[in-house]
């Protein structure tokens, strides 16, 4: 229904648009990847609904996470396929994903990021240790204290108790501030939807992990056992054990344990994180704290401080004015007035 209406608009406007803007449409569309052109994502809305239902029912659950061991990844990109499949995003046959690792001209030649209708990507980096490759899966990190959530001016984000950061397209106005606020560049936008564009992002398969026995689609399909889904605390313990028990195999750092206040997704790596596309200068302060102080100050100032200050000033000035009579100007005013 929606789509056909949109198509109708497009067709009628195409005639006008083509004459006004010229060939711009086709040339631009050609430069973009299919995922960037994607519209009409349904996964985020679906997961939000489940969250609302569980929230209203008062369901209690554990805090989960996923531990990614980058030393094991073979770059088969099955996780990308499974993610698209489960979330009903635009997809290609599984074989095309698996072929990338051996192709000369594969997607691995460029460093990719998430786009509309595309919640996860695998990137390839040179391994400085042995000259081989190291593959890095990217998706929403599911921050403990998310920047996107604090940036949203219509309150469209939630951090679920299970760990998922969820997005509600039903209230989103499309300001895209969350895309700027995210330190990991995760939220993507349906730029090619003229009427109902929305943000799209990974939900940590909220619709799966809330069912007993299910893990996220990417975790389930991984043939190399790269990812492990479990309680976040246990995963951190496990990761520390792995580092301790395999001296020299891993960098002594769990990415996501403390970054921007901690994330639900945790990474172990055999090489320093900054060499494989991770931002290592993010610090331990959660993103929302960066503006919290300012916001509190402004609100305090506006509600408490400013009123007596301004009214006081006004009262003093009008009193001085009355005393001075009406022909003189601001020279009598205190403070600023005296300067000129």
């Amino acid at each position, binding site marked *: 229904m929606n789509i056909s209406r949109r198509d109708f608009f*497009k067709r009628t*406007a195409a005639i*006008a*648009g083509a004459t*006004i*803007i010229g060939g*711009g449409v086709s040339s*631009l569309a050609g430069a973009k990847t299919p995922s*960037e*052109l994607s519209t009409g994502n349904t996964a985020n809305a679906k997961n939000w609904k489940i969250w609302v239902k569980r929230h209203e029912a008062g369901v209690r659950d554990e805090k989960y996470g996923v531990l990614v061991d980058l030393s094991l990844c073979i770059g088969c990109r099955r996780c990308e396929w499974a993610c698209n499949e489960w979330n009903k995003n635009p997809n290609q046959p599984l074989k095309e994903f698996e072929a990338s690792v051996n192709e000369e001209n594969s997607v691995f030649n460029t460093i990719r*990021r*998430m*786009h*509309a209708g595309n919640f996860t990507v695998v990137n390839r980096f040179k391994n400085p240790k042995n000259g081989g490759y190291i593959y890095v899966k990217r998706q929403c990190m599911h921050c403990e204290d998310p*920047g996107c*959530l*604090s*940036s*949203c*001016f*219509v*309150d*469209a984000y939630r951090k679920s108790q299970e760990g998922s950061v969820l997005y509600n397209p039903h*209230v989103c*106005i*499309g300001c895209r*501030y969350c895309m*700027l*606020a995210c330190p990991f*560049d995760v939220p993507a*936008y349906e*730029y*090619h*939807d*003229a*009427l*109902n*564009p929305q943000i799209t992002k990974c939900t940590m398969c909220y619709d799966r992990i809330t069912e007993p026995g299910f893990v996220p689609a990417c975790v389930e399909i991984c043939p190399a056992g790269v990812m492990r889904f479990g309680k976040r605390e246990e995963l951190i313990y496990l990761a520390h054990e792995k580092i301790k028990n395999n001296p020299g195999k891993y960098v002594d750092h769990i990415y996501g344990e403390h970054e921007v206040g901690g994330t639900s997704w945790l990474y172990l790596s055999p090489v320093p994180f900054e060499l494989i596309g991770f931002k290592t*200068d993010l610090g331990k302060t959660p993103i*929302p704290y*960066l*503006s919290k102080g*300012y916001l509190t100050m*402004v*609100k305090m100032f*506006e509600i408490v401080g400013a*009123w007596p200050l301004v*009214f006081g*000033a*006004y009262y003093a*000035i009008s009193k*001085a*004015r009355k005393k001075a009579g009406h022909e003189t*100007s*601001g020279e*009598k005013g205190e403070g*600023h*007035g005296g*300067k*000129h």
Partner: protein
Amino acid sequence: MAENTNSWFREKILLGKTPRDYIISLFTFPNLIFGALIGIGVAVMIYRLFFGLGPATNLSDNYGWGFWIGFDILVGIALAAPGLTLGTAVHLFGMKEYHHFVRPAILSSLLGYIFAVFALMFDLGRYYRIPYLLGWSWGFSSVLFLIGWHFFLYINICLIEWGPALFEWLGLRKIREFFTKLAIWATIFGVIIAGGHQSALGGLYLLMPGKLHPLWYSMLLPVFFLLSAIFAGIGMVIIESAISHRVFKKQLEHLDHHKFERQVIGLGKAAASALFVYFILKLFDIGHGHTFHYLLTPYGYWYMVEILGFVLFPACLFVSAARNNNASLTRFAGLITVLGVVLNRLNVSIICYNWSLPASMKYVPKWSEFALSIGVVAMLIIAYRFIVNRMAIMYDHPDYETSH
């Protein structure tokens, strides 16, 4: 009855001309240029509404905000600060000699905000949901929420402040009195509200220490934005008054020109003090943020161009103009000041944002983005002229005692 309405319309809207004469009088060379600019802008707006942001702009997932936010909102709102600065100076600090500047200042703030928000509607993905912000879904933790509400409140405040001029024009004496009394309270509210959101526009960027270049990123961003809005506002008053004096010469016959020149220089002095405070705070900020080593990089040179060429330089010019009683120099300095604020806002929002991305991935606005913004600016100028030609903005209305 019909005749009555017609004559009212002719008197108030058509400036006393017949419809035929009025339309003919519109065909002047500047009007044709403005018309063309608005036409192109409107075409882009329609294109954006039917095809979406993707085809209409060069925005991407790495650059969620582009020229429409950087220019229309960040620059536009900073340059729409005259109402804040002049309203405060005259109404709150009792600097009555500047009251000639107040009505034009309030009008430019009112129109500046209205057209900035109008342009914003084309940047928002779901512009038709904007009422959600006010009454449906509140994101209290967001700086943008503060800005959204403040814009809404401030437009209302400007409307109240503009009320007296509107009702003088309509000849509604009682309502005009009411708004005159209300205006002083609106000004008090306005100072708080405008100060809040001018700083909040800088506060938006507090969340992205990793994306904004360290020379521009600072915990003092809100303070910098507020201070620069103050001198941007004064600079705009200086420029606008200079232009108005040429364009609306007929309306200003009774003005004492020597006094006016002196006042312009006085405004320059105020701008200079704000510029110096800003400059010193910027120096302090470099020391505090340990960003010295960035100064000798390309971004560092660019930073120095902004700080020395567009902050320190105009500040010195203002001082020199005051010493030599040179109003033209003050006007030149005002222009440099305003250009500096434009540069600063574009640096923060576009040029030095995502500074670690390779040059090939940097955002360059599409022509249609410029075209829409230029179209909106042209609309603003036309609206400003339309109102000034009809209402008592530049002069005191002869039928009313002065309200200041």
